[in-house]
């Protein structure tokens, strides 16, 4: 059996994640996801003033900085017990939703679909069309994604001053000074994006897509109008089926949503479960649907280059103490292994859709006996059908509430706070403790920590480690399917993938796929 090392180019600083894949008889038999860079944001915050998290944590990431600001602010809301005014909830929500949607289309058409133009598919009848749509910087969909994602981000700049790394969300609301003129500007931006999404991505209205409830409906929709087949969604369905994306990348089959996007009192927006959040919280998996309790979260470090403790610790009590000498044996990552009730679980749009009981997504997962690359990415493309109408409504509701945009003179105090939300890639949480007016503990669990987690104390693989197992690697020189599996999770970091021989464990070099 040959040994190859594969690089999978993705966003974020190059080289801070490696995936090693053992291949035997043309299939992945094992995988290891290694975070190769220690960043230490949590440690930076210790000893600082509580509000410093609003400036520092958005800089954890340049693609989901609003997600971090949102959860950092919610942790401070929780610490202080302040009730955020309804319009401030709307402004926060709009900013987070704009960031999530622009990330979705950048990921979809600049990262994920770029693999469809891989030479591995030259004999695929749909290859020429894939190149026309997704060739980097030349494809029609790629160019549109660049233009439209950039424009949508103007909503965050209008409401919050800048993107990325804005700090306008504060405990008790937002520090924005915005009014009818700014809301109108946002309306222009949102209208433009919705028009793009409906015409280019969906080929139909958001309402039409939301009416699809099962695989049969999807098939009928595909053949209903040329615009449907020719849309990005229509092409994706056709290409995915032709290339078997619905047969790879299952993972453990456990999924979590923390819940996100509080619905303000009196809003016309309603949640799918009639709850108080547009994106409900919950767990789905082989054990069925369960309510979510953040107290069940733990972080393992058995295979991490961190000072040891046995088993897992809740983020409110855990620490992040790096320790590596190069002789740690089977420790292989700077990342911790988040677990829920001891189980590895994936997060992201698929988790959100299943927890919310999205009928089409639920049906497709059931038909295939669990998640797969096709439905995981499909859920991402369908997310806009949930978010855009709510954005439209909340934008219309702004300025009609007398509560203002912020509660003044919020008193920070000693104690603990938890901020949870759904960033672009899924569940994001900040756990904060303040003692003597200073941050004494700060833990962050990102969605990619969940999805790209290493093994835990029981040697259970992380979600995409597990999802890679069984993936067929037809051409060791160009294992494009490995890229599909990892990218279906939308990792927020550059990933270098090494393929190892299952027998001798040696690596020959690097391949770019």
């Amino acid at each position, binding site marked *: 059996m040959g040994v190859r090392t594969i690089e999978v*180019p*993705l*966003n*974020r*600083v*190059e080289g801070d994640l490696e995936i090693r894949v053992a291949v035997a008889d043309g299939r992945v038999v094992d995988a290891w996801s290694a975070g190769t860079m220690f960043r230490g944001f949590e440690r930076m915050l210790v000893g600082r003033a509580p509000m410093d998290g609003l400036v520092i944590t958005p800089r954890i990431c*340049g693609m989901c900085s609003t997600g971090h600001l949102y959860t950092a602010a919610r942790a401070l809301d929780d610490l202080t017990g302040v009730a955020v005014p309804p319009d401030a909830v709307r402004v926060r929500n709009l900013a987070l939703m704009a960031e999530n949607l622009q990330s979705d289309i*950048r990921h979809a058409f*600049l*990262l994920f679909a*770029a693999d469809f133009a891989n030479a591995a598919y030259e004999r695929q009848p749909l290859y020429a069309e894939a190149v026309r749509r997704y060739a*980097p*910087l*030349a494809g029609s969909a*790629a*160019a549109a994604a*660049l*233009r439209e994602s*950039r*424009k949508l*981000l*103007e909503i965050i700049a209008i409401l919050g001053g800048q*993107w*990325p790394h804005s700090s306008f969300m504060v405990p008790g609301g937002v520090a924005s000074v915005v009014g009818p003129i700014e809301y109108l500007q946002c309306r222009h931006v949102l209208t433009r994006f919705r028009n793009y999404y409906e015409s280019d991505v969906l080929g139909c209205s958001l309402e039409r897509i939301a009416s699809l409830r099962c695989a049969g409906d999807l098939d009928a929709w595909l053949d209903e109008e040329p615009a449907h087949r020719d849309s990005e969604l229509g092409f994706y369905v056709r290409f995915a089926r032709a290339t078997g994306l619905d047969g790879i990348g299952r993972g453990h089959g456990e999924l979590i949503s923390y819940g996100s996007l509080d619905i303000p009192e009196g809003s016309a927006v309603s949640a799918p479960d009639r709850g108080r959040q547009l994106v409900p919280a919950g767990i789905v998996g082989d054990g069925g649907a369960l309510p979510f309790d953040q107290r069940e979260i733990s972080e393992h470090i058995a295979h991490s280059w961190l000072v040891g403790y046995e088993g897992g610790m809740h983020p409110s009590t855990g620490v992040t103490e790096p320790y590596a000498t190069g002789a740690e044996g089977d420790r292989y990552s700077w990342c911790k292994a988040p677990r829920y009730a001891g189980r590895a679980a994936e997060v992201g749009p698929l988790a959100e859709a299943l927890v919310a009981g999205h009928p089409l997504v639920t049906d497709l997962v059931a038909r295939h006996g669990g998640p797969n690359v096709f439905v995981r990415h499909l859920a991402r493309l369908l997310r806009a059908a949930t978010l855009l109408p709510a954005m439209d409504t909340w934008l219309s509701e702004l300025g009609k509430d007398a509560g203002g945009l912020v509660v003044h003179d919020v008193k920070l105090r000693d104690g603990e706070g938890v901020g949870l939300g759904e960033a672009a890639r899924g569940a994001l949480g900040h756990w904060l403790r303040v003692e003597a007016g200073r941050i004494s503990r700060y833990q962050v669990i990102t969605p990619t920590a969940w999805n790209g987690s290493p093994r835990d104390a029981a040697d259970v693989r992380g979600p995409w480690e597990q999802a890679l197992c069984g993936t067929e690697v037809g051409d060791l020189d160009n294992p494009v399917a490995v890229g599909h599996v990892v990218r279906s999770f939308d990792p927020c970091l*550059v990933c270098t993938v090494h393929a190892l021989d299952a027998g001798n464990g040696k690596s020959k070099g690097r391949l770019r796929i």
Partner: protein
Amino acid sequence: MNSASASVRIICIGNRLVAGDDLGPCVYDWLARYPLPEHWRLIDGGLQGLNLLGSVDGARRVVFVDALTGVAPSRAIRVSRKRALGGDPRHFDHGAGLSYLLRAMAVGCDEPPPAWSVVGAAGPAAAAVVQAVAALALSEAARPVRRCRRTAARNLSNTPG
């Protein structure tokens, strides 16, 4: 004046906290001391990467200032288009850099892409080097834009804009 109405923009990019990548920010700091002509705008591009499309859109001419590698140190240089667009910048990731942005300008802007040039120097950002690069940036910014229709193809060619 905001960037949207400035037809000439000097965008200084780099990381002021990293020696060897701080030339752009140093040039920005130098130029920020002085008034610029009307309809010019000086922008601290930092590490914004693709987000600089917003700072480029609507301009007629853009000059990028950046630290260089692979050239003799301490000389202010106008980078050839071929070199500026070189490498394999097709992929959208953090390693794509300025070359990706330059290519993305052709497809990612609402307005016709601007004429552009890249200036910089290699080596430490010593005061004399910073001033020389700043002077070159101003010279580039003052170049007239050709009155023929700018097309995406021309902006990706080696023809000086």
